[in-house]
């Protein structure tokens, strides 16, 4: 058991913990904080996989931008809202069984999985390689993503604009 493995165990544990807390906490602000825990732990896992660029982007975009937008969303709406849920034992039991079945299926599938030797030299100029891939090889999907962004922006405006304002 080397240090990398211990770090992976801790990080994946906190990532899963954040997800479970998000589902079970009652106050929205607490839910938000538990999501941040998941995001930061994932960034740590990316660092372990020598994907520093992705890790930094994860912190910047998810822990930073997405969290702040969510915080604003909570602030501008009912921020004292509490999650009132009725407990349905049957549903909880069914979901639990489903999760267990899925877990054992996947565990059985990957138990004997053999990938061969791990990749070498992942850390060598990886940011430059990502850039070259995105802006040369994957330029068509990349440009298409910008259309996706445009559509999302327009959609946000169209849906949020009040009726009647366009008659000015």
């Amino acid at each position, binding site marked *: 058991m080397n240090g990398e493995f211990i770090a992976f165990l801790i990080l994946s544990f906190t990532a899963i913990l954040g997800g479970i807390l998000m589902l079970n906490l009652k106050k929205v602000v607490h839910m938000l904080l538990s999501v941040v825990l998941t995001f930061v732990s994932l960034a740590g896992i990316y660092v372990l996989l020598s994907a520093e660029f992705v890790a930094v982007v994860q912190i910047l975009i998810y822990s930073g931008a997405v969290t702040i937008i969510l915080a604003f969303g909570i602030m501008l709406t009912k921020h004292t809202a509490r999650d009132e849920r009725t407990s349905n034992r049957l549903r909880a039991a069914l979901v639990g069984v489903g999760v267990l079945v899925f877990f054992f299926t996947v565990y059985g599938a990957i138990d004997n*999985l053999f990938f061969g030797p791990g990749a070498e030299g992942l850390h060598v100029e990886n940011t430059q390689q990502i850039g070259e891939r995105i802006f040369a090889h994957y330029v068509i*999907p990349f440009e*298409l993503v910008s*259309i996706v962004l445009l*559509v999302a922006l327009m959609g946000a405006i*169209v849906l949020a604009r009040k009726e009647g304002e366009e008659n000015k």
Partner: protein
Amino acid sequence: MDIQTLLSFEWGMMAPEFTILIVGILLSLLDLFGKDTWKKSLPWLAVGGVGVAIIFLLFQYGHGDISILGNTYVFDSFAFYFKLILLIATLLILLMVISRTVQQEVRDRGEYLYLLLAALLGGMMVASGGDLISLFVGLELLSLSSYIMVGLRKRDVRSSEGAMKYLINGSIATAFTLFGMSYVFGLTGSTKLVDIAREMSGSLGSGEPVAIIGFIIMFVGLAFKISTVPFHMWTPDVYEGAVTPVSAFLSVVSKSAGFIIIVRIFWGIFGNATFGGSDTLFATMIDFIAVLAFLTMFIGNLVALRQRNMKRLLAYSSIGHAGYILIPLVSLTPVSLENIWFYLLAYAFMTIGAFMVIYILEQQKQSEDISIFTGLYRESPALAIIMTIFLASLAGIPGTAGFIGKFNIFVGAVAADPAQYILAGTMAVMTVVSYIYYFNIMVQMYIRKPQLEGTTKIARLQSVPLILCVAGTIGLGVFPFIALNFFH
């Protein structure tokens, strides 16, 4: 990669996509900065754009296979034929949008147009994607635009409800698809479909179970898009909430794109993957898809019997049709792809036509209930006869495109090895069940007396999409070999 390599690709093959993109951006700019007097002609610009794209596409008929930038864009005969369906269907839907007589429904007409074009662009990229990343981004572009279009009818609670349900269901589906793709990527180390197929055609060894998990999860995610049972729950609410042309778009273009990506991924990747030494992985998973097809035909048609809202009825009938189209996917014969293509084309004409008739009546009577058809034959014989043609085609009566499509699928299912007798039988029984609710509408039209005296007129603009859809439905029904010869 230097500039010479970049320029060496045949970018001209992307002309249809570029046309749609440019027209879409032009429309949004004109809508923003243009004078109000121009804005009335914006829909015609959209129609013109799609028309030009169709012409560009037709010039590519018979062109050899092309791949741009490591298969992130591919042109092959598959992409050509299915893009044609997407373009024709969108053209008909744009004509439907133009024909609108009641103006209050959706105020933001401009947005509506470029969202339609953006969704079409996404669908076309799905047809031309040779890489999981392009396929996924195209599908997301299509889905995101659809979510917004469903929510455009802001004053209607049902529209907001539908948009919300669609967004949540769609996001879950996307997450599933992506999760399944990650398994496939992890197993093969590539996102390029050709490379994945090559990796998988060797012995998967200990990776077989993982490949199966990836297959199932990815299929479940994409099954949301084509709304197969049990992933169909969103469909009736969304179709009911959306404006009728958008319902038609979801029912035809969005569903076709779902089938396109399924065929592309599952036949492309898993059709070559060997499993257990002898069969392909796809062949071993046929039972899984067959069960879905069975459930979809069964539940879609049975629940449709109980519907009174016309858009919900068509939603359930479209679920049933998705079940029929799944049959050639599992009964593998050399003509399977042809059958899927023909059925989707026929389905486009008859569904858009039926939605168009509902759209006309809905605008005049302010209702979507089945009672809008009551006594239609006395009010407007022409409209009643046109609707009868579409219903006959949806039900699969000889002489219409729907019959040829169903007949081909049936023959394919029986002729396949192994023959799918259960599916073919279910299809036949469910077709008979579907007669009940389609003929119920005909009873309303011909036998019942109208509630109010008066006539229903068809405006000139409204007749254009109607005539085109009737021509398509009858033409493909009487001369199916024209389309089938074109396909070869």
